[in-house]
């Protein structure tokens, strides 16, 4: 399971000020904590600071990578900001995100190729936006992988985002995402997946319970990556248990290690 730590995002409390003031200690502390809690990538997102994103995003990458030996997930729709961040990034970055929308596709693909980064690909296009139909999403996802691959991006560098939507406004949205994951995985078993989960529980009480349960269902369908708060101990324990149960953890060694480190006491 590839964990992307979501806590460095200017839409979260305190982060906007930290980025505006270029508060190195605050950002590095957040990065270190997330890595200690099991993050494989550190997400950096300063999209709310529209006017200074091009300067702030590379600053975030440098600041994070001075403190931890992990790659970043460069989270922005702005090609200029992405490029500036990729320029200073050490190791193999992940870019979040591309879609099958023509403009966005053509602006971002050259950057992914040049910097050999991973790429998160959202299953949406110009024609239908976000489809509510799993078959359509699978078609868009498979088409996107074909095209990215033809444009020189290896399949194992692609992370499909199946677009999680709330079950509170349409009850079948959980199933639609699960079927999308399953369907794309059938055609391209080597592709990765990456998504945030919490959208699924919008508008309902006890969201953590729904988010955790959904994560396990998604893992069963083939999800192998998630953007989340690695400080969420219940979620992380659930991931340990699900990996062990799904034979993603040989001899359950990681599960046992998590137990001995007290990580399952939640």
């Amino acid at each position, binding site marked *: 399971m590839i964990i992307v730590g979501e806590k460095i995002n200017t*839409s979260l409390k305190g982060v906007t000020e930290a980025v505006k003031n270029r508060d190195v200690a605050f950002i590095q502390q957040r990065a270190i904590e997330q890595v200690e809690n099991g993050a494989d990538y550190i997400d950096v997102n300063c*999209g*709310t600071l*529209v006017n200074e994103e091009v300067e702030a995003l590379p600053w975030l990458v440098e600041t994070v990578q001075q403190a931890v030996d992990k790659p970043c997930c460069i989270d922005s*729709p702005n090609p200029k900001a992405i490029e500036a961040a990729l320029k200073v990034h050490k190791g193999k970055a992940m870019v979040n995100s591309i879609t099958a929308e023509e403009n966005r596709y053509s602006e971002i693909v050259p950057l992914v190729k040049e910097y050999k980064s991973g790429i998160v690909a959202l299953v*949406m296009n110009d024609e239908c936006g976000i489809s509510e139909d799993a078959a359509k999403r699978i078609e868009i996802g498979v088409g996107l992988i074909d095209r990215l691959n033809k444009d020189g991006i290896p399949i194992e560098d692609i992370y499909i985002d199946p677009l999680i939507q709330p079950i509170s*406004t349409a*009850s079948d949205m959980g199933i639609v995402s699960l079927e999308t994951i399953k369907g794309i995985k059938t055609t391209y078993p080597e592709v990765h997946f990456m998504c945030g989960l919490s959208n699924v529980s919008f*508008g309902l009480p006890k969201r953590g319970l729904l988010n955790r349960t959904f994560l396990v269902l998604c893992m069963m369908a083939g999800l192998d990556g998630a953007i989340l708060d690695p400080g969420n101990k219940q979620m992380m324990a659930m991931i340990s248990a699900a990996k062990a149960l799904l034979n993603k953890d040989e001899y359950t060694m990681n599960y046992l290690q998590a137990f001995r480190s007290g990580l399952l006491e939640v």
Partner: protein
Amino acid sequence: MSLYDQIAEVLQKGQVAEVQRLVKEALDQGLKSEGILNEGLLKGMMDIGDRWKRNEAFVPEVLIAARAMNGGMEVLEKALADEDVKPKGTVVMGTVKGDLHDIGKNLVVMMMKGAGYKVIDLGVDIPAEKFVEAAEAHQADVVCMSALLTTTMPYIKTVVDEFENKGVREKYAIMAGGAPVTEEYVKEVGGDFYTKDAVSAADKLAEIIN
């Protein structure tokens, strides 16, 4: 329990057929359609809206209540027209160009309709000209827009500017909302009102339109 109270109660349980049956019964008893609307259907929507605000009711419950409200309105509409009952006001609503997120916008539309306003829902990805055209065509009182992305939020200003350019800005109150949007931001780009959720948005209309 009065028939009005019964309508309000079954509406909150989302029972479409039962709401329709009770509305018919009320009309058959000779009750005025305006009373059935205000004391029954709208009262029910207001109650569930309040409970939603207090985290006692949740989105799916509000949605099925709104569905029951629409069911009741189908029965009531002819009587309302016969009695010449007018909506409280007209609102033009849309999600700005480049933005396809409509869940929050749809909740706002639902609460506004539930509060007795006529809502012209333009949908998602709406260019500035369309907002102006619709506002003019429907003689709207209020123009509302949503933006869920930091990248589409600046388009709120584009819409406000379009109203200015066409020389019709002062005819409409302009309200905006969505995850990244704040009160300061709306004021800064020349809008009039910001509200943080669907219930407050519907409440705000009452202040604006009277």
